[in-house]
């Protein structure tokens, strides 16, 4: 590596060469290899190969990585959810690190946001203020309700929650910028503060009947994302609608057009047929196994007559095929209910599924099928789409806009940014708010997917988010990193556990050992890249 600070090394003056000639000597391939994302990308590919390979069940002779549990339809659905959820907060944490600050409050913010949404959806939104109240005994100090919204719909719940979380994000940023305290300690304070506030609030709202202690969770919310409007029944949960009495289902059936009936009949008949075929196959395998086992015992004991009988049975083995269930009108009506649009599209956006059509098609072509012949998975979790939307938006802002240049310079050289008129304080506060926004989106996806909220949600997530960002090439001292890298980092973090779970002969918890090593390596590599760019080596 030539030392750029000393142009006079060597005795002879370089003829016809200028400083700028010293750059641009690398080829395209070298440039590609030197991109900071190349390391994480390689690790991700390795992990995916490991997951694909080791999750193939023992005894199945296949090199197809999609044959195993890691990458079958359900595996993909579950793994992508894990990655997406981490990915959402990693982008918030990563952008903030690029601007030179930390947010350790992300995990607590997730719990807090989940609590806000859960409590509001269950009990509504009420504001009371302490004030003097006129009572028969005179003026006393009491609570006056100034605002009361008994039923809160998902829109209002998400918006009000965002008001709270964005305020806390702003507050953290404001304190950091104004006082010059390290964001580590400020956000650490909010880690405790928000978690405590969450638990206190739960208990306050959620008193057990005996008033002794409250639970720190909200459960038993309706399946908000799957509430449909059914004429004659109003708004009703899909699962309840499917269990309606026969005559109600028939009245749904009566509203259907002949083409709808025809296409659903065809679809259900296909499913029933596949189910029956699979059942037949299972029966056949079972019978075969049982006879073969008996035959083995007979051979061991030397019982020749029994051997003959069993061999004869093997030859004449004829399992009667299971007849497919006939498609009833009630089945058609139930299937039709599924096509009713949800009355809460926002809840569906956060907690529902996407690409259901694709997964239906994958079932038809015979891949998305579980062991019983039913459809394995009904789509990706919506969190995957939200993650990708946030990632694309963050990429555009960071790499293509003025704000992006401000973020890089705020983290890269704060004094230089200030001297050039960059509003570094505003940049930092906005990113603390963005981090809180990402935590809220994470919580919304969780609440609307599971229809429950829990004070313990999001525990340690802030550290995972920071680790994912660092694995993806973000330098902890700021000023360096890309959204693409953060996306890769989250994917590595999310998939490592699954991959290690399937590797035979080793304890699944080795994935943490592995992640620790990857994190350390990444941090060293990032620092190296940063030094190379700043001319340190």
């Amino acid at each position, binding site marked *: 590596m030539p030392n750029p600070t000393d142009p006079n090394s060597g005795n002879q003056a370089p003829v016809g060469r200028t400083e700028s000639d010293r750059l*641009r000597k690398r080829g395209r391939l070298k440039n590609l290899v030197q991109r900071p994302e190349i390391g994480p990308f390689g690790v991700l590919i390795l992990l995916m190969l490991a997951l694909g390979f080791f999750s193939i069940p023992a005894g199945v002779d296949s090199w197809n990585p999609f044959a195993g549990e890691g990458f079958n339809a359900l595996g993909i659905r579950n793994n992508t959810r894990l990655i997406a959820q981490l990915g959402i907060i990693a982008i918030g944490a990563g952008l903030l690190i690029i601007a030179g600050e930390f947010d350790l409050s992300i995990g607590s913010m997730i719990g807090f946001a989940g609590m806000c949404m859960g409590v509001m959806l269950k009990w509504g939104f009420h504001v009371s203020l302490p004030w003097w109240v006129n009572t028969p005994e005179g003026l006393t100090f009491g609570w006056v309700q100034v605002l009361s919204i008994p039923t809160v719909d998902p829109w209002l719940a998400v918006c009000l929650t965002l008001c709270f979380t964005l305020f806390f994000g702003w507050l953290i940023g404001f304190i950091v910028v104004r006082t010059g305290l390290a964001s580590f300690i400020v956000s650490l304070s909010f880690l405790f503060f928000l978690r405590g506030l969450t638990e206190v609030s739960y208990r306050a709202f959620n008193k057990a009947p005996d008033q002794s202690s409250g639970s720190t969770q909200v459960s038993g919310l309706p399946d908000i994302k799957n509430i449909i409007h059914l004429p004659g029944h109003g708004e009703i949960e899909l699962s309840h609608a499917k269990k309606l009495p026969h005559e109600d289902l028939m009245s749904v059936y009566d509203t259907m057009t002949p083409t709808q009936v025809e296409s659903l009949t065809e679809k259900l008949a296909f499913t029933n047929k596949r189910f029956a075929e699979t059942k037949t196959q299972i029966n056949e395998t079972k019978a075969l196994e049982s006879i073969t086992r008996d035959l083995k015992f007979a051979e061991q004991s030397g019982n020749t007559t029994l051997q003959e009988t069993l061999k004869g049975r093997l030859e004449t083995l004829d399992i009667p095929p299971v007849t497919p269930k006939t498609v009833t009108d009630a089945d058609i009506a139930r299937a039709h209910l599924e096509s009713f649009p949800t009355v809460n599209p926002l809840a569906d956006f956060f907690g529902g599924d996407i690409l259901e059509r694709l997964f239906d098609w994958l079932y038809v072509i015979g891949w998305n099928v579980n062991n019983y012949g039913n459809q394995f998975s009904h789509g990706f979790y919506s969190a995957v789409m939200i993650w990708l939307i946030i990632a694309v938006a963050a990429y555009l802002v960071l790499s293509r*806009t003025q704000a992006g240049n401000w973020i890089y310079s705020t983290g890269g050289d704060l004094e230089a940014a200030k001297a050039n008129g960059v509003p570094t304080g505003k940049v930092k506060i906005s990113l603390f708010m963005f981090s809180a926004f990402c935590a809220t989106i994470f919580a919304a996806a969780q609440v609307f997917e599971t229809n429950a909220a829990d004070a313990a949600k999001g525990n340690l997530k802030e550290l995972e988010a920071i680790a994912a960002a660092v694995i993806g090439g973000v330098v902890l001292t700021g000023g360096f990193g890309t959204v693409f890298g953060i996306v890769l980092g989250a994917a590595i973090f999310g998939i490592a556990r699954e991959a290690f779970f399937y590797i035979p002969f080793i304890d699944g918890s080795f994935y943490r050992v592995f992640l620790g090593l990857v994190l350390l390596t990444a941090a060293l590599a990032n620092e190296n890249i940063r030094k190379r760019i700043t001319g340190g080596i």
Partner: protein
Amino acid sequence: MSEQNPVVSIRNLFKKFGNFTALNGVSLDVQAGEVHALLGDNGAGKSTLIKILSGVYPPTGGEVWVEGRRARFNSPRDASRVGIGTVYQDLALNALTSVTRNFFLGREMVWGMGPLGFLQMAEMDRITTEQMAKIGINIADPGQNVGTLSGGQRQTLAIARAIYFGARVLILDEPTSALGQKQQMEVLKTIRQVRDLGNIAIILITHNEIHARLISDRYTFLSLGEVIGKGTAKDLEGDDIKRLMAGGAEIGDLAAELAA
């Protein structure tokens, strides 16, 4: 050189920090197309003077005129608005981003509204390359990181940036310190190129007598907050410069003194 219309004119400038008088009635005129060297030992008041000029401190008394207009500023932004561009020693560059991104830092060209406007990268790259070439540096790739530039190139970048964003007075704070020999020459060449543009007044602060002598047209010597001497390059003999730089004290023969 005409003495009629100085680009910047400092009249009887005072600056007191509590009881301490940093500047005690300093006057100074700088013409367009001229390099004016501001010389003096540590503590002479050079830094205070340029900080007042670049809007960091308000003066306690006296006036600053820029292009015939009384200039008052409360912030560095105000100073750069009236055309005073200061290139500090640390250059205010972010080594981790590209030349273009640094050139336009804080003043990016964007499509669309506000900070979320999209950068006009191609246009900004073109302007950066053009402006750097104008004062004598051809950069291979405006997309390269500033960290990969030599010290001289960084200096040029900072100067080109100040000029492009409307500096009529360019204040250079020890531009050659902390550079290698060859890069020092490069920077001096750059300064000469800027002078030859003809419409920019340059105030050069330096400790290096040789560099001052190589490119300066006019000198002002400060000592303990006062002007102790001024003149054109022709007026001053070599020993005068040395003596005045040291604050008026006679420097004996160092070699003889050390030998004693």
